[in-house]
């Protein structure tokens, strides 16, 4: 294995007609680029006032075949989830993360009243609905950014048929670069970072678009406006 490594790196250097980069050369060249983490060219559509970006996020997410509901405060979350599921005749049994912000789903009056059944942690293959909080929303393309961690199983984003993502309006950013900045501020890069734009789809049969290929058939985004 070391032989192959040396041969490949040696081959690259032979082709480049130079030896390994000296520290000074690295610092002046590629190391500087790694350290700078400089955005290259951010499109205009990733810029704008918070209101403009929220509108753009909504428009782009809907274009990508997601559905979006805007709710006032996290208190409204259980009710919004229950009515979304009921309106579509979907199961009201859901599985969500162990993030503290999802605590409100457990023991809510809806759960108490039997209108929602909430499980937490890892989904089983038979679970059909998941509710996951997003780290950021990216207005540029209507994309939500989710990350794995002790409180979040990534399979929640792929196994169930209905994927409900909870996103705070204040967490909407313009472009991917701002989403990365937010992630870096959280600490080490998580094991998995998912950027999700609309539900699962395929065009592999005669190029006809079908939703729900292997991942979720529905992506529903609950956009939460914080109550003052």
């Amino acid at each position: 294995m070391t032989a192959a490594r040396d041969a490949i790196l040696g081959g690259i250097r032979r082709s480049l007609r130079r030896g390994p980069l000296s520290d000074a050369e690295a610092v002046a060249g590629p190391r500087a680029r790694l350290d700078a983490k400089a955005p290259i060219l951010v499109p205009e559509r990733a810029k704008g006032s918070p209101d403009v970006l929220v509108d753009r996020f909504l428009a782009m997410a809907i274009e990508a075949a997601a559905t979006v509901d805007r709710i006032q405060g996290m208190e409204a979350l259980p009710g919004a989830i229950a009515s979304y599921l009921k309106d579509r005749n979907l199961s009201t049994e859901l599985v969500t993360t162990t993030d503290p912000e999802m605590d409100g789903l457990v023991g809510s009056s809806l759960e108490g009243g039997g209108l929602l059944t909430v499980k937490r942690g890892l989904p089983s293959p038979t679970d059909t609905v998941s509710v996951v909080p997003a780290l950021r929303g990216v207005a540029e393309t209507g994309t939500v950014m989710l990350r794995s961690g002790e409180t979040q199983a990534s399979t929640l984003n792929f196994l169930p048929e209905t994927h409900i993502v909870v996103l705070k309006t204040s967490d909407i950013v313009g472009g991917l670069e701002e989403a990365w900045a937010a992630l870096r501020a959280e600490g080490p890069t998580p094991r998995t970072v998912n950027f999700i734009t609309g539900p699962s789809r395929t065009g592999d049969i005669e190029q006809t678009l079908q939703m729900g290929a292997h991942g979720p058939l529905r992506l529903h985004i609950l956009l939460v406006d914080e109550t003052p």
Partner: protein
Amino acid sequence: MDSTTHTFKDNIKVALANETLVHSLETMKTGFRARRAVAVDRLPEFDALCDAGRDLKNHVLENLDFYLETFEAKVLESGGKVHWCRDSEEARKTVLEICRAADAKTVTKGKSMISEEMGLNDYLEENGVTPVETDLGEYIIQLRHEHPSHIIAPAIHVRKFQVAEAFRKAHPQYAADRPLEEPRELLDEARDVLRSSFLGADVGITGANMLIAETGSTVIVTNEGNGDLTQLLPRVHVVLASLEKIVPTLEDASLVLRLLARSATGQEMSSYTTFSNGPRRPGDPDGPEEFHVILLDNGRSNMIGTDFQDMLRCIRCAACMNHCPVYGAIGGHAYGWVYPGPMGAVLTPGLLGLEGAADLPNASSLCGRCEAVCPMRIPLPKMLRHWREKEFERHLTPKGTRWGLGFWSFFARRPGLYRLGTRVVARMLRILGGKQGHLKELGLSNGWTAVRDIPAPEGRTFMDRWASGERP
């Protein structure tokens, strides 16, 4: 994968006679091309992003050793392993060893062109490990024992009735008389069958659209979500990637993402873009326990510093083949190996050697559409010409063509003789053309006259008419 590039000319005849294929390729022209045009028009910065993409990849190739070492260090730091493999055989063996160590019976696979390049599926099967392709298109062609005919739409040549035939044969667990006419019915059945594969697999193998030096991340871009289920559920995740997939930072990855989906399917962003960093962390509820990256060279390091270095900027979006009139007529299988279309005609001789693939660079009218739509600004027509020159230098060109070119160049270097010759031939053809003004047959041009007539010259050559003062 075994190559049939040496029988390219025969492959073409088979393809042109295949009506099913012709129908599928027509759909491609209205689908991918139109959607790309809309997506590109909507982003005013698209051209500037292409320039930036070209510059980024050039910088990466100039510092490839540095970025690969940085990437490796980051993967190790996050608890993963990096396996450097010089060629397909080393890579196949490494993957098999990982599977054996995991005591794997079945592996699920996300779509990977590197896997095709390595010929991984056949090798695993020969050694008692069952590979299951999970991308719908890849699954369909795996059942049909075929190879992909397109790098992002592997089953583009297959019609839905053929998918139904393959499913009826492969899925005896369902009622024989079930309806399978609609794409939805076919998809639901595949989803159902593959769900148990995802849950039962011991190892998951995916490709990588990018590797990121800054974080040691591997990136996959999919629409189905199959790649994610492939890498999240089994105990071991193996990533197959070639050297040139690396980019320095997450910002650089953002640039590539802005170009990739728009150029490929005309989407603003594919449904799922996933960044993976090492194995499951302590306390994580899911994710693989082992994380392996196979770094495959397979001839790429030798392309650096040559006329073909620019090809290593390719991000495999398939825009070049979607817009190629030759690919649009013959489809991907005729090209005979993993990579079809313009990018394949340049890359295949680079990776397999020119000897068996010399016909590929000749199958182009050099119309330039591929270069015009390439988000990495790869000068594909120029490189096709480089291969033609090399073919001639190495005496790989067929005798007839060499003789013809020699004959032409003898006259081309003697303008007086050339003008005399063309004058005689033009008059002769005019007489042969007679009253109709065209010829039904002409020696040495049967390929042309088999399907259409040759218009006869009007009599005098352009040079003569110009000299006598005629002006348009």
